[in-house]
């Protein structure tokens, strides 16, 4: 648990400090390795590479009774790629997070995020609803922390609205007057994205209420057809994230 230098006041707030750092948005966010913030409310800012550039902003607040174990918090955030703002691409997250510390300085934080992601490009517009869960078992000290970064993300339901360019890919397939199937099909699709995460996260206290986190690792997809694609197909197996947490 937290070793605060602010006396009894900070010690009572310790569970909520953990809640604050447990509540982080989006798949690109590092787990909450160290509870360093001196207050239950706070914001976070994150910059990452997946390998595309992503940024996240969010706010969390503890909701558990004082001293409860595990401690729980809720929050919300947004994630976006600066290059794609003009296309209306982004992700909104509802966050629930918790921390369990069965032993002094050793425990785990976990987060779950319900999200709505949007993308728009030449092929069409997609809205995806999904769930991301993330756990970080490890060491949580006073000034620094280190933990494993484990997670899974699944977009369970997506709506596709295909563009004219996508529809043109179905043209001219049947010479000689034959008439075949039409496509592509607009509508709702299930289980359109799944990814696993495995990595490491480290946190360092910079000042009271201010912590820096860095996470790095690998992300991969389980293919249904035994097709393992690499970099060329949007499956870069590495990620890098840097987070700054500000608690008040």
């Amino acid at each position: 648990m937290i070793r605060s230098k602010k006396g009894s006041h900070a010690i009572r707030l310790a569970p909520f400090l953990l809640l604050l750092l447990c509540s982080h948005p989006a798949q690109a966010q590092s787990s909450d390795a160290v509870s360093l913030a001196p207050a239950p409310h706070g914001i976070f800012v994150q910059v990452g590479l997946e390998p595309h550039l992503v940024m996240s902003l969010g706010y969390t607040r503890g909701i558990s009774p004082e001293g409860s174990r595990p401690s729980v918090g809720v929050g919300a955030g947004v994630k976006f790629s600066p290059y794609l703002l003009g296309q209306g691409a982004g992700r909104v997250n509802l966050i629930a997070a918790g921390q369990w510390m069965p032993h002094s300085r050793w425990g785990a934080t976990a987060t779950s995020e319900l999200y709505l992601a949007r993308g728009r490009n030449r092929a069409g517009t997609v809205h995806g609803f999904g769930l991301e869960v993330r756990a970080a078992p490890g060491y949580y000290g006073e000034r620094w922390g280190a933990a494993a970064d484990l997670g899974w993300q699944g977009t369970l339901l997506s709506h596709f609205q295909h563009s004219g360019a996508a529809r043109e890919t179905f043209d001219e397939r049947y010479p000689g007057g034959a008439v075949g199937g039409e496509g592509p099909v607009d509508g709702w699709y299930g289980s359109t994205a799944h990814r696993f995460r495995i990595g490491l996260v480290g946190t360092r206290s910079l000042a009271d209420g201010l912590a820096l986190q860095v996470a790095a690792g690998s992300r991969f997809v389980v293919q249904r057809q035994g097709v393992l694609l690499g970099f060329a197909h949007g499956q870069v197996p590495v990620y890098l994230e840097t987070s700054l947490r500000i608690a008040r």
Partner: protein
Amino acid sequence: MRWVCPVGGEGRTVTTMHSPRGLPALVLLLVIAACDVMSTETPGNLVPPTADQDPLLPQLRVSVAGRERALHLQSFGDPQSPTALVLPGGPGGDHRLMLPLQALAERYHVVIWSPRGTGLSERVTRDEHTLASFVEEIAAVRTAFAPDQTVTLIGHSHGAGLFLRYAVAHPDAVEQLVLIEPGPLTREGRRHYRGGAVGWGDGQDFFWQNEFLSSQDHAAADYKAVSLLPLSFRSFTCSGEPEYEYPMWRFGAFHYHVVAHGRHAARGAFDWTEGVEGIEADLLVVAGTCGAASAGFQEEYNLPALPGARLVAVPGAGHISLFTTHAEETLAVLRAHLAAYR
């Protein structure tokens, strides 16, 4: 449910909060909805079905690399005419871009197809993507259409390289060989080739798609090419802008991965022109004057490795526009060169 949330220290204020009651219901709704929705794997939902999935497609079944596979294939003209085989570029591209060459049906029996794993041809396993297997595939198509005749081979980009290897392996089967903007055929050429590269900015959306569409099956992976390919063609245009005038059915993403970057990629000292001195057929290289594979690149890196080859340029054309906005000029070059037009 109400939670007591202490905020301050001395004289603290107690604040009550309500937990989000709708959250479990929302999760349940998502789970229920996910049980009665379409799948990206269902043929035709995202991308056109392949020949093995759609019997209405014009196709040819061939036995290659120990497996029988369906090729999406079209033929034009009189079967009694001399045969011209046409292959598209890639790796992974389909033959829709090559369709303007059907105009040669006035003098040839033109056979155009998408190799296994590309376009609307059947998807195949990783081990079936060897270079030897694609040479075998060409032999199988020739056997089907011109078993006792020499053939004219017209290949674009990667397809040109495949035809070159076939001609090396079967010099007696080839009458004429036309290479339209072949990619780098030598190691030195590969070092200097910049065709098809995707820039940092163009790649952002490609990876962002993983938020809602991961490349977990052939259809999802191939679908992503609809948005990415025009951007990758910047390097092939005169202006450096994306090439949106690119007719396509379906890109073979897995094929591209295996052949361009995976186990069967040409790398190191591999030389597409090895043994080319044994080719007796007339050899022509056609190229535009714009982009990474233009006449300048051909002259500097490919022609020196193709003894006896002639180079003809199509002014103002790029790698893709040779078959779109400059199709007539390209056809004019071919008509001026091909034996059946003399």
